[in-house]
């Protein structure tokens, strides 16, 4: 076997091989996986063949150098092995290819508002009951990026979509039983704390209904969905009554009074008229006798 002795040439050869290796690995990283597969076999052969040559070259270099031969040999061999490992890993696809990850990302530009938010998040003004400050626990959780949306990017397929039928079935089956209600009441009773200040007391009163809601709504509690014309034009309910006669006269007066009544709901007014209709129907035989 021909072994070149001159050290300069050996070094140059080593460097060339390393650069070749690096370019190969770069190409593998950049290029598509499909082309890498047929290359992988070739590279394996090449690496094995190189190994022998490299070992020989390493031994020649070590002998040519004035330093400790065995140590230099072992160091160089270790370096070469590391290179081979990285290439194998990249061929298999084990290492994280940063190029792929970075290519989709864009550089984030922090607007002054966001910067202010970030700085203010570092300084928290909240105090616990002892008087100690609550530290900002996680700075990253509160960062809100309006430009990044949730629906952009590849699907991770971690969660399976629940069909709406199963959801409906679940909600329909668990109609709150008495025990559930009691349990919920118990929890509420146990967890409620006495109000810490006047504001919380007022909030509690508002929830109970003791205190009105401000600004005062004049129609609070009034659920009159009917329009004004349903209150005023009540003649359509008079269809069952006789067209002529004192009863009609009487009912028209009743309707006039009802149309001016702001306190009754439309339902109540209709009930009123219905009662009169029933009454006069019952008395019809009597009335015909008159």
């Amino acid at each position, binding site marked *: 076997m021909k072994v070149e002795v001159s050290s300069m040439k050996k070094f140059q050869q080593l460097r060339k091989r390393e650069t070749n290796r690096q370019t190969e690995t770069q190409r593998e990283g950049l290029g598509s996986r499909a082309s890498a597969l047929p290359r992988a076999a070739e590279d394996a052969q090449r690496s094995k063949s190189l190994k022998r040559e490299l070992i020989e070259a390493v031994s020649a270099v070590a002998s040519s150098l004035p330093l400790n031969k065995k140590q230099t040999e072992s160091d160089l061999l270790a370096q070469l092995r590391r290179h081979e490992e990285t290439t194998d890993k990249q061929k298999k696809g084990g290492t994280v290819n940063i190029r792929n990850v970075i290519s989709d990302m864009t550089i984030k530009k922090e607007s002054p508002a966001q910067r202010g938010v970030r700085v203010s998040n570092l300084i928290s003004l909240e105090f616990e009951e002892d008087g100690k400050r609550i530290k900002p626990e996680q700075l990253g959780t509160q960062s809100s990026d309006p430009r990044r949306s949730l629906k952009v990017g590849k699907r991770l397929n971690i969660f399976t979509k629940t069909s709406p039928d199963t959801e409906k079935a679940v909600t329909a089956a668990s109609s709150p039983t008495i025990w559930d209600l009691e349990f919920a009441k118990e929890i509420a009773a146990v967890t409620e704390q006495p109000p810490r200040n006047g504001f919380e007391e007022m909030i509690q009163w508002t929830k109970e209904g003791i205190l009105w809601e401000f600004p005062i709504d004049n129609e609070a509690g009034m659920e009159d969905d009917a329009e004004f014309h349903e209150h005023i034009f009540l003649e359509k309910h008079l269809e069952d009554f006789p067209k002529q006669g*004192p*009863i009609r*006269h*009487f009912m028209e*007066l*009743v309707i006039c009074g009802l149309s001016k009544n702001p306190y009754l709901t439309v339902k109540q007014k209709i009930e*009123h008229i219905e*009662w*009169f209709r029933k*009454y006069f129907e019952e*008395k019809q035989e*009597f*009335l015909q006798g*008159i």
Partner: protein
Amino acid sequence: MAAAALGWALRAARQVLPASCTRQVRGYYVDWRMLRDVKRRKLAYEYADERLRINAIRKNTILPKELQEVADKEIAALPRDSCPVRIRNRCVLTSRPRGVKRRWRLSRIVFRHFADHAQMSGVQRAMW
């Protein structure tokens, strides 16, 4: 007969509370007269609409008089305690029928007692 009356009295003496309330179930009114007044108020509330409508037929110059006479008999047939005239505004605390101020629903004696102990908001001894 006596047992039924006793049962009815016990039931009547019980205060009507909403289901969510967890106060004691049996309560007491100050006296029986107060209880009867409470019954009258309840009945008056129940029959208020009917009484209004029958009276509208009665107090009429348009409808025939025979109809109005029939309406008279009908309203007389309603329970006696359903008419609002029988309600007496008694004192809420002592059931006193006379000397009751409407705004506070208290008799004059109770009112004076609370006002002197400064338990009536905005009430002061007059001096001018």
